[in-house]
């Protein structure tokens, strides 16, 4: 029984790290642009397809797998630059609801384009040999799971340090808090926004490249993580990386323990938890100060 719970907790941590990889870019984009980027899931999916195109069904080595993930990040980041220049930048004067619709439009556009480009088929992707195995320490621990947890923690630390301790992060924060004032003190607001949107999209691509082997690759890949990532961003506090990390782990554990404790009612835990958490604390764990 204990083993079962330990196993569920391990799986929950893996899922939590996976959710965070998607939520990180989402919450960053919200902090900067103040819009919910519904297209994030679609770019995550495109990242997964790019990684698949680079590394194939089973990457021959770990470096190749990582390289494929980084190429995916670069490609999706580049798409992000184009999207910002063509669409997001022009939305400054329209109400928030309409920016939401633009994001929805981008999502549909990308899903449709991916359907035309990659076809309808579902691919099974395997992690490379080096992290494909299991270790037996009382319970089977998948190396790929450990790899995802490590990737989640590395991403978290990189963003946390990058945004709070490095000059560039402080500039981004300044723009996020008050674009007008940032402009007055001489920051290049448009360029900084462009950079942070590119980072947000690159994170989506990276997440796609890393998580591609976690489940079968299909066009619905975007939806499966997007809703949970949304939950994490809301509960964490809009725009907060730290909050998103904590909330992602909470939702990962909830989803995983749900399958052990309530096996007859799959998938109910995270939604119930979301409703309870938002009703208790609507502003999130780390509320956004500028709102």
């Amino acid at each position, binding site marked *: 029984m204990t083993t079962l719970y330990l196993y569920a907790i391990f799986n929950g941590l893996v899922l939590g790290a996976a959710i965070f990889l998607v939520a990180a870019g989402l919450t960053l984009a919200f902090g900067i642009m103040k819009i*919910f980027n519904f297209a994030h899931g679609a770019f995550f999916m495109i990242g997964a397809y790019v990684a698949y195109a680079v590394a194939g069904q089973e990457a021959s080595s770990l470096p190749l797998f990582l390289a494929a993930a980084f190429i995916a990040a670069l490609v999706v980041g580049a798409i992000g630059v184009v999207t910002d220049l063509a*669409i997001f930048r*022009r*939305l400054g004067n*329209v*109400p928030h*609801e*309409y*920016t*939401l*619709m*633009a994001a*929805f*439009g*981008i*999502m*549909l*556009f*990308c*899903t*449709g*384009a*991916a*359907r*035309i480009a990659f076809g*309808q088929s579902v691919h099974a992707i395997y992690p490379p040999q080096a992290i494909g195995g299991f270790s037996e320490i009382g319970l089977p621990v998948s190396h790929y799971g450990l790899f995802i947890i490590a990737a989640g923690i590395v991403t978290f630390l990189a963003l946390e340090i990058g945004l709070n301790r490095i000059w560039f992060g402080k500039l981004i924060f300044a723009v996020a808090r008050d674009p007008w004032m940032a402009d007055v003190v001489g920051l290049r607001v448009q360029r900084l926004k462009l950079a942070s949107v590119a980072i947000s999209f690159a994170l989506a691509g990276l997440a796609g490249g890393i998580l591609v082997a976690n489940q079968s690759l299909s066009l619905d890949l975007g939806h499966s993580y997007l*809703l949970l990532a*949304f*939950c994490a961003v*809301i509960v964490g506090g*809009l725009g907060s990386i730290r909050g998103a990390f904590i909330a992602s782990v909470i939702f990962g554990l909830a989803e995983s323990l749900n399958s052990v404790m309530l096996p*007859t*009612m*799959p*998938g*109910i835990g995270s*939604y*119930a938890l*979301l*409703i309870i958490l*938002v*009703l208790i604390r*609507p*502003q999130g764990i780390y509320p956004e100060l500028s709102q």
Partner: protein
Amino acid sequence: MNRAAQAALLLFLLLFLFAPFLVNPGLVFLAGFAMIQIVFALSWNLLFSYAGLISFGHAAFFGIGAYISAVALRDGYEIHFVLLILVCAAFGALAALLVALVVLRRASGVQFAVLTLALSQLIVVLIGYSSLLGHDEGIAAIPRPAIDFGLFTVDMNQPLTSYYFVLAVCLLAVGLMWLLAKGHVGRAMRAVRIDAERAAFVGIDVWRVRVIAFTISGAFAAVAGAMLAPWSQIITPDYVNWLQSAQPLFAALLGGAGFFWGPVVGVIGLSGINYLTRTFAGLSEVLVGASLILVVLVAPQGILGALKQLARRRGGRTPGGHA
């Protein structure tokens, strides 16, 4: 509302009226489907552009109506279908009232949108458990009722009668919503959306107006769902999930959310794109996505807003001023 838009709406009405004599049965089915979506989209827009609340889980109320109606028809309850529609409306209103009472006290804006989304996804999950509601496969082969009105009988098994019955119910629902929107309640809702604080100052109970708006909107969404069950004869959880909830948003913003008739134009536009691109996998999504982006960039007031601006420019009056 300018003359071009009025003429277009009249044309749409005529097309819907004579659709069975003009086009093939496949298109007639889509026309009926579009009418139901119009009622659904209008009920959502009542909330959005009149009360200023974005619901992302509106498909839940649509689903309540659809499933109650589907189960009642499948199991052959001896209930008059018109009464059944009213029962669906009552349940939709009740569910919306409960949600409003719990959620509106705590959350607003994005949190409100996400809470409604989570509640509707919870309902999708619960439907998946229920064998009464057919799990993930939904309810198929729903029989169409024959409705006895005393003097005459409306048999929905005949294609023509069933189309006109759906049309009549939809027109009635749209008319009721129009009266509500233009009447006292609608004006109070508008005041709350534009400036809640000032509305409270002139004596409008903001909280109550929002709860009422949400309840009314839920009832009409349920009516739309109740009509779908006999019309499409199949109800699946896909009609309850978040993509269905997003449909009215698309329609309202595409047509022009500031206008009562905006969602009508939007639904017809979206149905048109979907129909024209139905044979190309992926192309319809690309086109719908591209047109949404285009509308936001070029005409953020939607199609009706763009028409209005065009008319104003042609009329030579100065642009701007109050809408």
